[in-house]
């Protein structure tokens, strides 16, 4: 009885903490203005990143060398995005008003994840450029 209560409460708290933690990682990226370079490469127009671009952006991130500081954040956001995608796939079949609201929330969150990926790519490109300029100047 106690074990089942602990299990249920802990899972509920875990989900809440996980969502807040991932959002704290994403929130930091939201202040970042994407450079023209990254918009050009990825085809992003304005400062809005489409959810569908998330996977491609992460592929580009993997191709671009970085300082290694962002790996943990990428993993957490990738897990969050996958969970949201799974949730969206499950809820799409249901069509009540509450589900529609949840779906639009999930879509907004996934768009934030995509923006995070674009920001990481932008930062890695800037890092590579700095490395390159140091290499050519020395």
């Amino acid at each position, binding site marked *: 009885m106690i074990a089942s209560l602990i299990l249920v409460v802990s899972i509920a708290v875990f989900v809440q903490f996980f969502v807040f933690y991932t*959002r704290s990682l994403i929130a930091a990226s939201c202040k970042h203005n994407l450079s023209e370079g990254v918009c050009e490469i990825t085809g992003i127009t304005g400062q809005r990143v489409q959810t569908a671009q998330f996977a491609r952006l992460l592929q580009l991130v993997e191709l671009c060398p970085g300082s290694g500081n962002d790996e943990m954040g990428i993993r957490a956001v990738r897990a969050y995005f996958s969970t949201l995608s799974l949730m969206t796939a499950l809820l799409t079949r249901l069509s009540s008003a509450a589900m529609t609201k949840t779906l639009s929330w999930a879509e907004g969150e996934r768009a934030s994840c995509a923006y995070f990926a674009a920001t990481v790519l932008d930062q890695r490109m800037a890092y590579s450029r700095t490395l390159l300029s140091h290499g050519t100047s020395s």
Partner: protein
Amino acid sequence: MLGPVAYAVWFVSFALEVYILVRAISSKAFLRYLTLNLFVAAMALKEALDFTTLYRYGFASPQYRYTFYYTDALLTVLMYLAIMHLYHQVFREMNLGKYIRGATIALLAGTAIFAWGVVQSNTDHLTSRFVVEMSQDLYFVGVVLTYLLWAAVFKLRETRMRLVQLVLALGIYFSGSAALYAFGNMFPDLHAVANLLLPIVGTFLPAAWAYTFTAVPESARLAPTRLAEEAVSHR
């Protein structure tokens, strides 16, 4: 027997813990986060001790099992001190240090009395089932403490991003561990699932803290209320 993935997770955990300590010392931040760093040092020590016991006695040995669970229980108690350090950080401007120290002593005394009582009434069967149950309870106390801390962070509009992320990572670690121990306790036949996931949850904490200490500057600010908004809006 442990597989290569389990050994890899183990090694990554140990490496991350050493990294946090080296970074804290090199950036002269060891004393600023003293309790957290002591906790990380204890985690690294536990990993080393577990590995030595495993190497000497084998995975199925009672020596390894007891070393694993009892050092884990001791580590959880040490973690309470780390949480109290974070409480101290959150309430530092309200001069509540005296009360927090009192609460820490009361909490440790309560835990000691609870553990003593449980051990007294279970001396004839200090089995792995018992230690799983004890770990589940200790971790759950950690969940409650971290949740209250998070509520305080939220209510007091604490904006230090490092602190926010340290608390959230701690919450994930405690709630994940408590859930897995409770699962293992409820379904002893499926304890392999819990055993597989526990090291991953255990690695998350040093990984998240290493990330926070590396990528989040001391001056970074974030309003926790933003995290509860319907969607994190970007520019």
